[in-house]
């Protein structure tokens, strides 16, 4: 339904609703951490940013020019490949799946004996995989810095005022 819509405001709102429903899905999968993020970022902040971008353009999408058959074929092919890729995956929730055999048992016991905090996710994220999280925080910082630099460059009046303050 979302892809048929031409009114971008409705598209943004429906995407937000979809995100909120996904957050509910994550809760039922016991991934409350992810659900927090999905609800706050996907349904909340992203929607606001989309609306902010929408206010700068027109509300309605222009009708597409040319054929839409080729993108349709590409997307169908991609979906088929991805669906084929899931064939080899172990059944959902299987206890002896490879992902539960590798380092997960050590993390689950280690979170209590070595780190001493009950939340295994926090233990993995901040301690066992601390270096990854350092990089992720760097990615967020870089993204934010990029947006600030790009969008504030388009606001000469404020920059002039700021440099005026500094003098």
């Amino acid at each position, binding site marked *: 339904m979302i892809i048929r819509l031409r009114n971008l405001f409705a598209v943004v709102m429906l995407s937000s609703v979809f995100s909120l429903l996904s957050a509910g899905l994550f809760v039922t999968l016991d991934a*409350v951490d992810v659900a*927090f*993020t999905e609800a706050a970022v996907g349904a909340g902040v992203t929607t606001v940013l989309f609306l*902010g971008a929408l206010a700068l353009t027109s509300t309605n999408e222009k009708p597409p020019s040319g054929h839409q058959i080729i993108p349709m074929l590409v997307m169908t092919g991609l979906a088929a490949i991805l669906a084929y890729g899931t064939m080899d995956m172990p059944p959902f929730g299987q206890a002896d799946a490879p992902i539960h055999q590798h380092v997960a048992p050590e993390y689950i016991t280690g979170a209590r004996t*070595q780190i001493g905090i009950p*939340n295994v996710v926090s233990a993995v994220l*901040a*301690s066992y995989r601390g270096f990854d999280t350092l990089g992720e925080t760097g990615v967020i910082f870089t993204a*934010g810095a990029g947006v600030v630099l790009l*969008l504030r460059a388009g606001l000469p009046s404020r920059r002039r005022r700021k440099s005026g303050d500094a003098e």
Partner: protein
Amino acid sequence: MKHHIILRVSAKLLIPLILLFALYVQFHGDYGPGGGFQAGVIFAAALILYGLVFGLAELRRVAPLRIVTKLMAIGWLIYIGVGYAGLVLGGKFLDYNVLSDTPMTGQHLGIFLVELGVGITVASTMLAIYQCFASLQSRELADEEW
């Protein structure tokens, strides 16, 4: 936005609760679900809601872009600083065991500080991006234009 009184009253009621919940998710992250990322986005969402309802100028007063952009870097520097603190105290980079007397309390302290750094960076980045987008708006849109 001046005429949306229900929106403004309910936002005033909700924002303190959202901020409190963000702090809970941040500092209770070791024990319950949550952590720096989640707390950061919830905190930022509360302030963005404030900006949406009461206007960008009000949000600027609470969280000026100048300070927010600095906080983006400070959060990450806290994280890196914890890493180097491990080095200085005789361990490896990001080794929390040496941060305190016993490895367990060291881990607690390390995770707490690292999550705090992540939370600060995430919240301030969200706020900075929102402020940048919102400040591009040249005029107020009427409700019917959507």
